[in-house]
């Protein structure tokens, strides 16, 4: 049973973020066992309130919107456009999930035989039969990973003396930082949702103070898991507040919400889930 204090907090929080109704124990643990002061508690509550939660229904709607945009783009035809996941290795990721989920939606828009490729490294061999590349992914954080994939593809195409092609990215959600980086590099990006930084974009005068509160909380966490450092403030410091129903939380999200281990290697209850193998 929850005590009156946490009950009251949840009662108001859940009105804004209904998905937290199932996470009452985890929210209580974070607020009352891990937060040391009311300042930390208030910050966590503000951040929880700012979360962008994508339900399955919302996700399907966004996928439909993206496919509609691709199929209605004048230069894109089923026989000149590659739709590719941003995956580069053999491990499963959300870009492949998005790509696969789009398969029947392309049919809805009468693209009978779309060229869907689940690995970036396999794109080059489809040239010169195809001339447009559309990358799809669920989430873009700092944009650096995406930029790396695109740079590699550009190099590979250059090696094959191919210069006539177009590139565009479609994502369900993108952090403002990542979107700006890609824009600076001249890469076109469409995302259904754009996310601001959870702390830095919301506080001006007391920004550093809030960051210190978060850093104090992060000091409770194991600094490294199997050689991978805990991404303080989210990978690339993008301070993301995003989660999809049943999804694998991106590492761009504040790790206090998903990092599974305390500094002494004991497990902690977390509001969000992310496979630590991807940490």
């Amino acid at each position: 049973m929850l005590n009156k204090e946490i009950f009251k907090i949840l009662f108001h929080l859940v009105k804004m973020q209904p998905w937290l109704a199932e996470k009452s124990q985890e929210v209580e643990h974070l607020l009352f066992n891990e937060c040391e002061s009311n300042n930390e508690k208030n910050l966590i509550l503000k951040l929880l309130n700012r979360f962008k939660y994508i339900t399955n229904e919302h996700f399907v709607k966004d996928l439909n919107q993206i496919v509609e945009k691709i199929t209605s783009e004048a230069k894109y035809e089923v026989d000149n456009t590659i739709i590719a996941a941003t995956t580069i290795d053999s491990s499963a990721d959300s870009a492949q999930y998005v790509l696969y989920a789009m398969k029947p939606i392309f049919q809805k828009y009468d693209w009978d035989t779309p060229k869907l490729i689940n690995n970036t490294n396999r794109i080059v061999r489809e040239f010169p039969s195809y001339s447009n590349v559309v990358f799809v992914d669920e989430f873009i954080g700092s944009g650096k990973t995406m930029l790396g994939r695109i740079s590699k593809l550009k190099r590979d195409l250059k090696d094959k003396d191919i210069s006539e092609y177009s590139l565009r990215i479609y994502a369900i959600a993108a952090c403002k930082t990542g979107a700006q980086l890609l824009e600076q590099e001249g890469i076109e990006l469409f995302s259904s949702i754009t996310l601001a930084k959870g702390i830095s974009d919301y506080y001006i005068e007391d920004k550093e103070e809030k960051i210190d509160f978060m850093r104090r909380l992060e000091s409770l966490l194991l600094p490294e898991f199997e050689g991978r450092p805990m991404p303080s403030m989210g990978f690339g410091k993008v301070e993301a507040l995003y989660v999809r129903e049943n999804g694998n939380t991106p590492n761009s999200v504040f790790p206090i919400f998903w990092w599974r281990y305390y500094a002494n290697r004991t497990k902690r209850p977390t509001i969000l889930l992310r496979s630590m193998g991807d940490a």
Partner: protein
Amino acid sequence: MKLSIIEARILSLVYKSSHSLGAFTVYRRLRLTYKDFYNSINSLIEKGFIEETNERFQITQLGKEFLIKKKYYLKKENKIWRQVPNDFIQNSISTTDLYVPKIALLDSRQFKKD
């Protein structure tokens, strides 16, 4: 329209309150998980059976009519832990029947057990 058991219990509890009932009181009295509490309350609000103001719930006219029509408030909860298993039930003994008393239960002074 049907209510779940939890919804019926909440509606009945709110109906029996003199005016309105605090959210925490409902949660504590029915010993619910937060998820069940939230989902059931939401469902009742969506159905127009209760209203929430300042963390307190009040039954609506529609809710009262539904409750009275369905007589949810009269239905006794099925408390399975109070039901005696069949193996333990035997024929009742008449008050005039003879029986062998259990020595341990007899008053030691009256019957001079020592």
